[in-house]
């Protein structure tokens, strides 16, 4: 299965008692990719992950994971690691016992399972607490424990469903660094489902946005941001005494509409009309100002970030 796509899906569909959770999902992910899997609550992210990890059966469609088709679920489970959303942990077991138990379920002999558990716990920063009962673990430690369990089979694809949910900013950062470090070190494909767009911009190569069970945008982070949320506004800073002059110059331009920015006497708001290439329109407007001897002290385009794209594609259509 060398050279196979890490993930491939065609027309996946899943409904719960008539309510469609995922509809016509098509997906292709290259090996080694860190995919940001975005969508509002109820968009179907967890359902997709559960289908691809074979714990839920799709109603329709086809998929393959690491080149293994869906009709071989056991083989798929040997190749994937999953950190489920809101996973439960047995409070009466130690972290090492729990990871070791799961390693044995993957067929490792008992001694090997224990050694693997210790190695992975060290890798996720729980070496010191491996022998403690899980009931004493913080939320962040439990997430690390879950990540260790997700790696016990040296997976080719790792699904992380909201790995930073409920963590404080420091905990989020630590889990994110841990995850990207593992991705680099092990060369695995990672699917990161999250609401934290900054995480995705920071850690992911590609992004897929799901809304009401359908894919509404996918590509590299830059592509999605550019395509879905092209900037339509810009802020120009000029000397306050030349503000009127600047407005007159820009009024003659068809590419943009300009207006004063409220309480800020040296600032102008440029609005690029829909359909126009925003970069070109802004460049043209700035050139006009410079040609009219109006110094441009600063310029920034608004929008164009992943968060803008997310809001654009997930607002009710």
């Amino acid at each position: 299965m060398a050279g196979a796509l890490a993930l491939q899906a065609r027309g996946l569909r899943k409904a719960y008692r008539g309510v469609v959770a995922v509809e016509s999902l098509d997906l292709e992910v290259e090996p080694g990719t860190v995919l940001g899997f975005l969508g509002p609550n109820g968009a179907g992210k967890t359902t997709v992950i559960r289908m691809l990890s074979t714990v839920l059966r799709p109603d329709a469609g086809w998929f393959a994971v690491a080149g293994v088709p869906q009709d071989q679920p056991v083989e798929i489970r040997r190749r994937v690691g999953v950190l489920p959303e809101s996973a439960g942990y047995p409070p009466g077991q130690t972290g090492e016992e729990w990871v070791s138990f799961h390693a044995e379920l993957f067929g490792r002999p008992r001694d090997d399972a224990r050694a693997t558990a210790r190695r992975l716990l060290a890798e996720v920063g729980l070496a010191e607490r491996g022998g403690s009962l899980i009931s004493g673990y913080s939320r962040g430690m439990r997430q690390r424990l879950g990540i260790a369990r997700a790696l016990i089979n040296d997976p080719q694809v790792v699904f992380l469903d909201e790995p930073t949910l409920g963590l404080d900013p420091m905990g989020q950062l630590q889990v994110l660094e841990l995850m990207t470090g593992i991705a680099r070190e092990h060369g695995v494909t990672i699917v990161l489902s999250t609401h934290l767009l900054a995480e995705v911009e920071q850690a992911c190569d590609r992004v897929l946005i799901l809304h009401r069970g359908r894919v509404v945008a996918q590509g590299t982070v830059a592509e999605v941001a550019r395509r879905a949320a092209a900037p339509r506004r810009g802020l120009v800073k000029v000397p306050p005494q030349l503000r009127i002059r600047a407005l007159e110059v820009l009024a003659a331009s068809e590419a943009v509409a300009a207006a004063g920015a409220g309480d800020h006497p040296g600032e102008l708001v440029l609005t690029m009309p829909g359909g126009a290439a925003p970069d070109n329109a802004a460049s043209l407007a700035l050139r006009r100002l410079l040609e009219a001897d109006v110094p441009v002290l600063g310029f920034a385009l608004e929008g164009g970030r992943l968060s803008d794209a997310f809001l654009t594609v997930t607002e009710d259509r």
Partner: protein
Amino acid sequence: MAAVGDRPVGVGRRAWMVVAERELRDLWLAGRGLPLLLAYSVLLSVTSYLVAANQALNFLEQREAVSLTLQVAVAVGALLVLLGAADSVSGERERGTLESLLLSPAPRRALIIGKGVAALSLWAAAWAVSVPYVWYLARGVGVVGVAVASGLIVGSLLALFLAGYGLLISTILSSNRLSLSVSLFALLALYAPTQMPTAVQNSWIGELLLRVDPFTAGLRYLGRLIINGHSPGQDAGWLIGPIVAAVVAASLALAAANRLTLHGGDQG
């Protein structure tokens, strides 16, 4: 690569053994196995005391005292299995630990067998506790051997039946509370035929009902062996109900295991 259903990979232990060991540890070291066994011991002590006292006052024949204690030991011991089995899968669902189990390549059937073994261990422990009571009461009338052997056979059949039934219900239902409620309701329904008027019990439909119901059939069999002094083979027909029920319930539980999956609203 190893065949599916046995050892997931390489030379590790069989998956059902791994699950059974984990479940046994959880049940007996950190769970409710010991409290349940303690409650069972108290119940058996009270029962033995009462029947011994009644026997001393000549209200009960000694054989009746043995039979009554044996029936309580078997029925309540089997009930413990139901309590353990009914919680096994639905409890994992509620605690959010089922998904992690389902993500392993271990066959679903192995997960259910491992949990079933742990539930059946409650019966094994209960029976071990009840043997001294039975011996004490039965030693004067020479039925110690038959009481212990028949109690073990009938109790094991009922325990297997209730383990299969509890696992089946637990696999199907999402809520632990619902699973326990349905299981206990069914158990009460199984005891109901014992409350029928004697005339109805002696009619052909009454006897059919008593024979089909694994509980009444098993307990009747014990009564006939101990009180009436029948040979084990003489009333073997009464064991058909418990045997069929045990086989059917265990088979259905294993069949349902193959369809074990997450439900829509299940947490991680």
